[in-house]
């Protein structure tokens, strides 16, 4: 955490089995002023989530041990999805995967490879207490770039 970034005080859990992806996401979000915690698979994510409160979860879909979908099911059963927005990250770009992601309770679905800005803007959308019109603006721009 560099000294010159202004802290928003919001915390984000990054769940991805790829260390490189975690590194990138951590860098992007830390630079944007969020507290970031990393989990390398679904099992670890659930353990961390059981002990600490987070404001946003970035969840990879395809992981060993416990997949993103299974983590979602778990959170759904515990009734925690209403408290925490979850952004699904995945290389699966098919319509049926995306639909399945939203049905599973995802707040947003990001296809890899993503633009850094998408991650930053989504964090802003969920965490920065924006007005409705500001939020709409973000969504409009994101929809455009995800084509």
């Amino acid at each position, binding site marked *: 955490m560099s000294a010159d970034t202004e802290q928003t005080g919001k915390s984000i859990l990054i769940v991805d089995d790829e260390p490189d*992806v975690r590194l990138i996401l951590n860098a992007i979000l830390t630079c944007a002023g969020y507290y970031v915690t990393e989990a390398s698979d679904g099992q670890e994510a659930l353990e961390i989530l059981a002990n600490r409160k987070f404001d946003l979860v970035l969840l990879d879909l395809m992981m060993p041990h416990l997949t993103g979908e299974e983590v979602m099911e778990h959170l759904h059963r515990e009734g925690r999805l209403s408290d925490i927005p979850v952004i699904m990250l995945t290389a699966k*770009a098919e319509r049926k995967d995306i639909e399945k992601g939203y049905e599973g309770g995802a707040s947003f679905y990001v296809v890899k490879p993503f633009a850094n800005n998408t991650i930053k803007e989504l964090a802003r959308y969920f965490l920065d207490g924006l007005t409705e019109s500001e939020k709409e603006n973000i969504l409009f721009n994101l929809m455009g770039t995800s084509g």
Partner: protein
Amino acid sequence: MRRLLWGNNLARSSNNPLVEAQLQLKLLQEELALSSRGMAALALELENKAVALDETNKQLQQEIAEHRQAVEALKKSEAKYESLYNSAPVAYFSVDTNALIRRANKAAEALLGYTFEEFRKMTVFDLYAEESKTKARELFGEFKRGNSLENEEMVYNRKDGQEVHGLLSVNPIKDEEGQVLKSRSVVVDITGHKKAQKAQRELEAQKLVVDKLKELESAKDEFISTVTHELRTPMTPLRSTIEMLLDGSLGELTDRQEKFIRMMGRNVERLAQFTTEVLTLSRLESGRFKLDMKRLSLHEALASVLELMKQKAQSKKSTVSFNIDAEITAYADVNSLGIIVTNLVNNAIVHNSEGTAVSVSAHKLDAGLVEVSIADDGQGIPEESLENLFDRFYQAKREDGPGYQGTGVGLAVCKALVEAMDGKISGESHIGEGTVFRFTLPAQEKKGTEE
């Protein structure tokens, strides 16, 4: 018997001539009486004999008549047999021990296409197709040894060269001493049956091939899906890192560093685009690409896509104009439409020099179709390249064009997507004047073609 009687009487009368004469007379009288009685008896006997003879004669006559009848019947039956032989639905042959064909019925002529005259000049081996010749010789040996053959599958060559499949049965005909004289051979035509069997086998083989192809297609799709995923995963941190380097998140860059990192960025983008296109094409080919066909306003569907392309054009000082009436609708999948138009507009920008004007328009055609055109005023594509442009991995050769290298898949994807939506795509170009790509889409859903 009578002579003996005379002799006895004469021998007994040898002493007194009168007595002898009287006796003689008496004897003669007796004899006469006897004789006449004998005569009568004889006559009776004769008469009886005559009656018997007559009877015999009658019987004979009858027998002769019966014989005649029998002969007639025999002749008739022979003729019948002959006609049966000739018109029987199975082919009959008779072959002698020298393998010469001695008889052949009409069915045999019809089966193999030779006349009997021709058969007579042939040996039985001349009838068989190459594959059956060895077997024919073995079977002929069996026949000569006096053995019967039953339902041997043979292949014959017709006079016209066609193959005939037959079931051959042979009975050797022998003389009293058991020597084989000739054969009585029957050939049942099973060509139709064989053909049906062959067709069935071919059908089954084809089914196997189709199944195998489907399996391969699915394996290929699975493979491409895995490969693209594996390519995309490492691209994520690469792309993000390049982005962070360029936006200064990781510290200031020198101009030289920035130049090289931008080059890295362009290549990562190219790789990303290529993997997406290959995946799309593979899905389209295997039918796994799902279209969400809806009636949509072309203007609405393309607005955001073209907004992005306008931004992209600015970097090359080119322009993208967009002229589609709000009322024009098409029955299409909005994502696919976006991919097609993005590809075509992107090509028009990157394959032409700076300051190219690209215009996107749409209008209604007859027969319930709409046409979307993407036109540029660039340098044009040579005619010989235009033909192959939609082929996978084909890239038009340009001598004076900018150094951009496409993936060669984009237009193949466009074509596959347009065709998946029941449209057609074509290109027209004039060197030095520009290029137009046009594709059609149904204006609305066709009846009975619901997904």
